[in-house]
């Protein structure tokens, strides 16, 4: 079978698994929420509401129906793309996700970009003299930043730069004194367009100022992953036969590293980037909570506390879909880029 056909088969198999995985995840979250202690009626009415009021609300929310029927409705609506309404605010879940997902993506992608630049630079810096001081510092940096507890790091950064020095805002996504820019929900992009269109650069300044601390903190925590991955893979690549062959042909060390070792060392980093993106979509919870960043993880945490079933289910399904999408994309990219991969 030709490589192209094998790749097409591999792609089809991966994509065919996506709906199955989503169904499993959706079913699991539906079941887990119902098994978990706590009642959305308590979260809405408090514990002292009369039984009649509680029963009325339960009926209004459809929670008095048999579990199987609730599950059937959930799946049917999911197939139609209807994620339901939040039990607390009665807003469509899709609208809530639409408002908070851009915030998470903006934070996550900015942090990922910074982390990649910083982490790869540190990882690359020690390569000239393996086991030298710079290499050792890079190794320590990689381990140290990876091991930092996120909430602690976020709080320390917040205390230093926002509270003591007062350089940057303590939290939130946008200055209280300005109206947020309208558009895609990505404030950086929207305020940039607003600046380009109307010359109002205050919004962009506000959006950047609010993004700096959470993005840098998250980037700091993630950069160690890139540092370690690059260091290990680059060292392995530099010790490989094809690099030796390149050296024996009289190529300069810079050319050997940049043209021969680095591209091969970056392939595993691509996989790691994919995994990191996937975990970032729903996983920057502590950063979002510390900096009051109104992202999807912050929303999820709040919804779990309120036992807002439709909102939790909706967020989990959407995040899962994105994670699966990113994973599949990365797998395919790696498969296309790396001729050694067999399907």
């Amino acid at each position: 079978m030709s490589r192209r056909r094998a790749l097409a088969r591999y792609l089809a198999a991966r994509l065919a698994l996506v709906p199955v995985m989503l169904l499993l995840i959706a079913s699991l979250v539906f079941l887990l929420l119902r098994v978990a202690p706590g009642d959305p009626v308590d979260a809405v009415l408090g514990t002292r509401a009369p039984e009649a009021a509680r029963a009325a609300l339960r009926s209004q929310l459809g929670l008095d129906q048999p579990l199987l029927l609730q599950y059937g409705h959930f799946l049917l609506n999911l197939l139609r793309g209807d994620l339901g309404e939040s039990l607390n605010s009665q807003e469509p879940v899709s609208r809530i996700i639409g408002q908070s997902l851009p915030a998470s993506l903006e934070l996550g992608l900015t942090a990922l970009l910074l982390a990649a630049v910083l982490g790869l630079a540190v990882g690359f810096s020690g390569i000239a003299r393996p086991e030298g001081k710079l290499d050792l510092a890079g190794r320590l940096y990689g381990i140290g930043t990876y091991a930092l507890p996120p909430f602690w790091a976020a709080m320390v950064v917040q205390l230093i730069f926002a509270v003591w020095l007062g350089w940057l805002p303590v939290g939130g996504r946008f200055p209280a004194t300005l109206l947020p820019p309208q558009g895609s929900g990505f404030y950086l992009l929207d305020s940039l367009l607003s600046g380009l269109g109307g010359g109002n650069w205050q919004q962009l300044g506000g959006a950047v100022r609010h993004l700096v601390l959470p993005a840098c903190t998250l980037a700091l925590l993630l950069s160690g992953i890139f540092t370690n991955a690059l260091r290990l893979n680059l060292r392995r690549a530099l010790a490989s036969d094809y690099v030796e062959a390149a050296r024996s042909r009289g190529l300069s060390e810079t050319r050997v590293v940049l043209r021969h070792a680095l591209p091969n060392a970056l392939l595993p980093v691509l996989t790691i980037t994919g995994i990191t993106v996937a975990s970032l979509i729903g996983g920057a919870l502590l950063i979002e909570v510390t900096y009051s960043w109104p992202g999807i993880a912050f929303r999820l945490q709040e919804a779990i506390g309120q036992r807002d079933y439709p909102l939790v289910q909706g967020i989990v399904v959407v995040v899962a879909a994105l994670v699966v999408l990113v994973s599949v994309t990365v797998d395919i990219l790696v498969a296309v880029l790396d001729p050694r991969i067999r399907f």
Partner: protein
Amino acid sequence: MKGLSPLCLLGALLVLLLGCQPHRPGGRLVVATSARVGSVDPVRASTFGATQLLSAVGDPLYRLAADGAVLPALAAELPRVSPDGLTVTIPLRRDVLFHDGTPFDAAAMVFSLERFLEIGTLSYLLNERLAAVRAAGPHLLELRLKRPTTVLPQLLSTINITPVSPRAYRDYGERALSDRFVGTGPYRLSFFSDQQQRLEPFDRYWGTPPRNDGIVLISLGNSTALYGAMRSGEVDVLLSTGLHEDHQQALQQQAGKGELREGLGPALEIGYLTLHTRQPPFNDPDLRQALAHSLDRERISERVSQGLRSPLRNLVPPAVSGAKRQIWPAYAPDKARRLFRQAGYCEGRQMELPLTFRSNIPSDRLMVLTWQAQLARDLGDCIVLQPNGMESTTVYRQLGEGAFPAVMLDWRGAVRDPEAYLFPLLSCSESVGDHCLQGESALSGSFWTAPGLQEDLLRSEGLVGSERLELLQAIERRTAAAAPYLPLWLVTPRAWAQRRLAPPRFDGNGRLLLQDLQLLP
């Protein structure tokens, strides 16, 4: 020199960022809390953040002064009650406009009340008492009650029944309008998101206009962020809701030095312990008394909140009852030891007390740990406390199932009246002896009642004035003697403002008066 380039770039970026600090326009003030507002519709508002917002953009029929006195707001005078106590007429103000320019009248009030009764999350507060509502005249509201109700004016001061414009809510009779509000209050809501709301003064407001050029309400997710924002001057006013005790203490100290201005509201929230009286060990009244005597409230309050929370030995807060005498058993370790001994403990046998607390509420955890240490010091040979942290939603779910021998909770009455503290903890619709099988007492986890107690509670509803208050006090004394609940402390709402502002003030329901916030000349 090459190494300097990135540093220069970083420095330039920093200067740029610092230079981009947004200017604060005029007298618009930024007020911060930890409370996010999911919905601004009065039919959905049940959280502190939502009711605080509604109190600025809407008006109730009556408002409570700081001392609890009922004052007409949208009502022109106090309610007129028929001799049988079942019909109430309320004349309404004639000079009120909604934010959309339509006039406020009895028909609008009926529309808003019926909408609340139909789809309101907290409609049970009125549904229990209200049989029907109608417009008896263009500006005359008539309420038919199911039973005589003394607390009606307080109930009508609930911000959830603030009128909304029938024109704006025409399509929202059966569902909530979560992100807009068209009412009659001193401010218009000009922007709404769950993390930020902007309020502009309503220039056709019927009452005293706001003393500032507008308010921006923001919510920050944690105590450190709130405290930091106040310290760095990002916010002008900070509410104590959601602030950790140490941050409150630090702000109070700053206010003491004159660096901030502090305002205090009425203490309407109580912290208390519930004891499960249907099962051992607290089915023994002597052991409940022993535990009551072993609670050193002063020490615990000092350690947990550095005195910000006042020790409390009543179920009804003094601000509500007006009572000065504290009636629950006082801290007396000797008496506690004697009672524990009588029950067979202390001499080589320790009572193991699993105490459940809400793990997501920092003050609960601190209280339990402090009490654990205090008990180990005072009565270590008689009792050992076993803390059991659990997320609050789980605690609430399992409370009525009798899952906890002892649990720490808090409560704030829906209205400012003793009834709102006693009924939710003591009402019982089905009982056997001292055990409540069905009703509020069972739902609250104590399962305690007493012969004739429910009848007394119901009788109090038909009484007025001092006779009613005396009966309610007698009920509270009876509860204190049985000690199914152990009141612990009172929580006072606080707010801090920057020095350039006048001290913040609260209304009688414990909400910050946003329209009173003003810059000092």
